[in-house]
């Protein structure tokens, strides 16, 4: 559905993205994961026809985004990172305008507007001026305008940024509900977001694709080791000693003790080994108190670091590294 081939975009001397290639199949939900300034928005803007790439080409639903820009734009719904709407229009008026801009059949317009109002759950504010709506609602109206006309491809640039947790959950539900109907690309810099909604992840950093894979595989491959954080009420030295003795534990690090004297420990285990049950058993068997036990999530920075420095990578990480698929 979406084919990007060797996309490069330069703004003067600044290279925003470099040699970005990927493909997205019909009905897939793909996440663009990367820190701020990685080139996510630039890639998305190219796909949406805001500006053409300096080099390379992108094809959406068979239409070249530069040569057949109007047609390509006709099948894409876009949600920009900075959701900007006309504040002096009511939600319904605005969506009507969007429907007209997208060239919808006038006879279908009304039912289509009602559909997207329901989809984005903004029906009850349909008559309100957009300027009087809260950020969360404006975000939803932004989603609604992207959905107008049932576009075959949806490109959502950080759809959950700036929402409260409840709204984030709702937005993810909405995105998941699109699975199968539309092809979706969404960008985010939150790892858990990708895990919650996406079939596949494209990791991008400094304008280059580092990896393309399923969230599950990625997690798996990235964690050469697993870390577990625990807090026990126990004599420190004895605890460290005892936990070190468990098979599979590679390292026990001592954290700063909790104010009430509990010992904080970070346990590093060999890859793919979930020792949480064993650790808990060992602590309780010794008669100590176990106050906390949780896996340490890899931060995005840690992921990028391990992507670039991963020893098992076939090619050495460097400036001329080609995008590689981590899955077999």
């Amino acid at each position, binding site marked *: 559905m979406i084919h990007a081939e060797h996309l490069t*975009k330069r*703004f003067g001397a600044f290279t*925003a993205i470099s040699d970005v290639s990927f493909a997205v199949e019909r009905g897939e939900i793909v996440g663009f994961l990367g820190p701020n300034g990685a080139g996510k928005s*630039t890639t998305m*803007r190219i796909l*949406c*026809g*805001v*500006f*053409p790439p300096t080099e390379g080409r992108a094809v959406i639903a068979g239409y070249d985004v530069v040569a057949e820009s*109007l*047609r390509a*734009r*006709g099948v*894409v719904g*876009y949600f*920009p990172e*900075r959701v*900007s*709407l*006309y*504040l*002096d*229009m009511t939600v319904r*008026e605005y969506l009507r*305008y*969007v429907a*007209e*801009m*997208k*060239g919808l059949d006038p006879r279908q317009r009304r039912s289509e507007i009602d559909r997207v109002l329901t989809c984005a759950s903004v029906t009850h504010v349909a008559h309100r001026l957009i300027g009087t709506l809260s950020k969360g609602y404006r975000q939803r109206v932004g989603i609604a*305008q992207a959905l107008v006309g049932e576009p075959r491809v949806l490109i959502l640039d950080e759809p959950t940024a700036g929402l409260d947790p409840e709204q984030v959950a709702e937005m993810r539900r909405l995105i998941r509900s699109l699975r199968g109907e539309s092809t979706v690309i969404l960008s985010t810099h939150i790892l858990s977001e990708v895990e919650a909604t996406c079939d596949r992840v494209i990791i991008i950093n400094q304008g280059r694709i580092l990896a393309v894979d399923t969230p599950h595989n990625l997690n798996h491959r990235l964690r050469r080791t697993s870390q577990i954080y625990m807090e026990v009420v126990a004599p420190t030295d004895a605890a460290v000693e005892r936990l070190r003795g468990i098979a599979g534990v590679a390292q026990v690090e001592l954290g700063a003790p909790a104010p009430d004297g509990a010992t904080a420990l970070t346990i590093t285990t060999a890859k793919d080994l979930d020792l949480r049950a064993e650790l808990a058993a060992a602590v309780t068997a010794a008669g100590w108190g176990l106050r906390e036990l949780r896996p340490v999530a890899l931060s995005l920075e840690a992921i990028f670091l391990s992507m670039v420095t991963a020893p098992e990578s076939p090619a050495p990480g460097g400036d001329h590294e080609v995008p590689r698929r981590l899955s077999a």
Partner: protein
Amino acid sequence: MKFLVVCRRELRSYFGSYIAYVLLAVFLLLSGYFFYSDLIFFVLFGGYVLPTGLWQYVFLDMRLCTLLVLPLLTMRLFAEEKKLGTIELLWTYPVRDGEIVLGKFLASWIFFLVMLAPTLLNPLIFYRFYQFDVGPLCAAYLGILLLGTAFIACGVFISSLTENQVVSAMATYGILVFFWFLTWNEEVADERIVHVLLRLSLFDHFYNFPRGVIDTRDVYFFLLFVGYFLFLTWLSLGVRKWRGVR
């Protein structure tokens, strides 16, 4: 036909805010007052003895009202969308840049017509008391219409260059007034240059109309001026394709 959609949204935006009504009121007040005082002056100081016709007085003054108001009308067209960021979504809809330019231009132009229409009342009332020859008045209205259209085209272009509305209005004033003063200082410039400047001066092409003269060269000049600036606007929208979007 997407330009009609763009145009309708702009018109909605104009008439949905009180700024439009303030502009409208100021324009009508000023042009009404000018008509009144010009008429008094004309009647008191000679009437048809004067070499200058009544419409020349009235429309040279109306030209100033137009110059005052139109840049304030066009300043927001692109600048506001750039500032708000709404323009980015506009780029992603299946609509040509040319249609966007045309739609926005048309909206301002229709507003200008709405502004101009009530001023017809002044000569209309006057006509009840004195049956003047209508021809020259029509020529004068055609002139002010063309001149205003040129102002709008220039304003649309400037608005596409900036995201600051004040800058947009000020720069439009700058260009328009420059085109006006272009031929004021004929003595300092070389005669041949003055000749060229005269051809370029926006206002020198206007003066014939209130005299009741429709010179096709003047009409062409204004149409070219409008076409040129709309083309420049279209080009300026294309800048994003290599410079990017903020």
